[in-house]
């Protein structure tokens, strides 16, 4: 989805190509086996046949599929909502966390975030026990104030974004106690050195401009970000010959850092509006609002 999110990108794609892409995405949607929804959601790729028994849907792919469809102007009518929601339910664990695939995987804040985005976009929370998910996330706030991927782990910029955004989408961010919120705010702001790092005493990295920029926006703290310093750092990681961004100056650019460099810039400057929780443009979000009435 990062390849087609930027406003610029989608204006360049013609209508027939958009329809082709939409068809391809839908071809990756799994159907239930009778009453068994464990396979449901979207699969990642067609490098293995979709018909294979163990080719289960993956929560991050479902999230990305929904975002991509919205960006392309689809109305989501092809989504088998019942299946997606029931598939989500299969992925939540006793402690509230989510794994990414019903066959079993690691479980952490990333997939709670995906679950929250999917539920929000479908306006259907039956696949998510929000109280348990919230408890898992809150228990993953470390002594440092940021959120870790899991209970007891190190606070990290990526998991901090996932947690704050998930809480926001679930309507639980407002319930955060004052002291915890202040510690969180302080930790997030402390990540800025020029651009942002993801953990104390680690080097800054382009993508953290988004993870922390969006986090701080969701906390209502955009005004505390030094926009000029962030922009100056991002400009050093732009490749002057190939284009795109890398995580550090002088390194080879890649799609992830190119997207998050741009998204980081936008979410901090507000020049192009980005939905800070769903991580799609406001244009795509307004389209979602239109098709979700």
């Amino acid at each position, binding site marked *: 989805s990062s*390849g*087609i999110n930027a406003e610029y990108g989608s204006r360049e794609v013609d209508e027939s190509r958009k329809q*082709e*892409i939409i*068809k*391809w*995405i839908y*071809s990756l949607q799994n159907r239930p086996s009778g009453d068994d929804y464990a396979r449901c959601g979207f699969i990642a*790729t*067609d*490098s*293995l*046949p*979709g*018909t*294979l*028994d*163990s*080719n*289960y849907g*993956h929560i991050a792919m479902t999230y990305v599929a929904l975002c991509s469809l919205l960006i392309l102007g689809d109305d989501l009518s092809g989504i088998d909502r019942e299946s997606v929601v029931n598939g989500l339910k299969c992925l939540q664990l006793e402690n509230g966390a989510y794994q*990414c*695939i019903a*066959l*079993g*995987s*690691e479980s952490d804040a990333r997939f709670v975030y995906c679950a929250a985005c999917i539920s929000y976009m479908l306006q259907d929370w039956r696949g998510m026990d929000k109280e348990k998910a919230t408890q898992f996330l809150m228990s993953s706030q*470390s*002594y*440092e*104030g940021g959120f*870790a*991927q*899991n209970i*007891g*782990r*190190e*606070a*990290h910029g990526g998991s901090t974004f996932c947690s704050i955004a998930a809480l926001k989408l679930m309507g639980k961010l407002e319930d955060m106690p004052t*002291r915890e919120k202040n*510690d969180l705010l*302080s*930790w997030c*702001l*402390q990540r*800025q*050195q*020029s651009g942002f790092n993801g*953990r*104390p*005493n*680690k080097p800054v990295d382009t993508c953290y401009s988004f993870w922390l920029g969006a986090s701080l926006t969701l906390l209502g*703290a955009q*005004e*505390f970000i*030094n926009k000029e*310093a962030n922009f100056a750092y991002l400009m050093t990681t732009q490749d002057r010959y190939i284009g795109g961004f890398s995580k550090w100056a002088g390194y080879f650019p890649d799609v992830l850092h190119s997207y998050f460099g741009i998204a980081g810039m936008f979410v901090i400057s507000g020049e192009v509006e980005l939905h800070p929780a769903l991580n799609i443009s406001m244009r795509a979000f307004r389209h979602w609002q239109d098709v979700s009435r």
Partner: protein
Amino acid sequence: LSSGINAEYGEWSDVTPIPLPYNDREPVVQIMYSERFKDVYSYMAAIMQNKEYSERALALTTDAIELNTANYTVWHYRREILREIKLHLESEMEFTASVIADQPKNYQVWHHRRCIIEMSGDASKELELTEETLTKDAKNYHAWDHRQWVLTQYKMWDRELEYIDELLRKDLRNNSAWNHRYFVIDSTTGWSRGTVEKELDYAAAYISKAPNNESSWNYATGIIKKQSMKYTDFSNFKELCRSLHASNMPSPFLMSTLAEMYIEEENSTAASNIFEKLKELDSIRVNYWSYRQKQLATC
């Protein structure tokens, strides 16, 4: 362990490969599969379709994993083969260790190793493995996650604080090691008043060595806040802060901690002066320090 896939090989002649692509739709961004990739995966698809759980299938997954280490479907199928064959768990540990050495930030291999350990019940190599991984990258999130999981499940706490001491002697700015220390104490002795004092002294020693080290400050202040205690209760730590301040130590972490202490003492004037200094000392966050200053008026 390579499967030696070759259409001419007799060993695979009974298998009809299912050729890529598996979709007649035009993809958005076509992956440039190599011939070898298409070869291996077309046989992988057939094997999985036929539900074959054999030695040669295991060897095939080795190749498939090498070509795409993030293919969780293949990793899962490999586990199903291991459950069928029931042997190989020890060599599987060697295999995962080599993949970890090659790609220490891959999620699937760490999860796979965890599954193997759950199958065998043998976690005896894990502290060594994670230590080795951390020697190459002391902050590898996966290694720390795995180590913490092993410690919680198998309760091998004996050497842990010693190991952290070692890491901090090497690099006192290793935030992961500091986090791990919090985790170990939290999971073992817990936070009695005596323990908190001891840990504040521990942090204080490192603060004195490097007063601008965010990690040591986060540790000290984090303990007090997380345990809902007060700075007032810990005179040694307060004294350290005051003496550093008296020597004009220009550390923003010192200053923000002092501000918190003054706020706790309800000394708004002193706190405000600290925030004023921070606006210049930590100028990238000038707007935040102004905000903190304004907040004092409304308390």
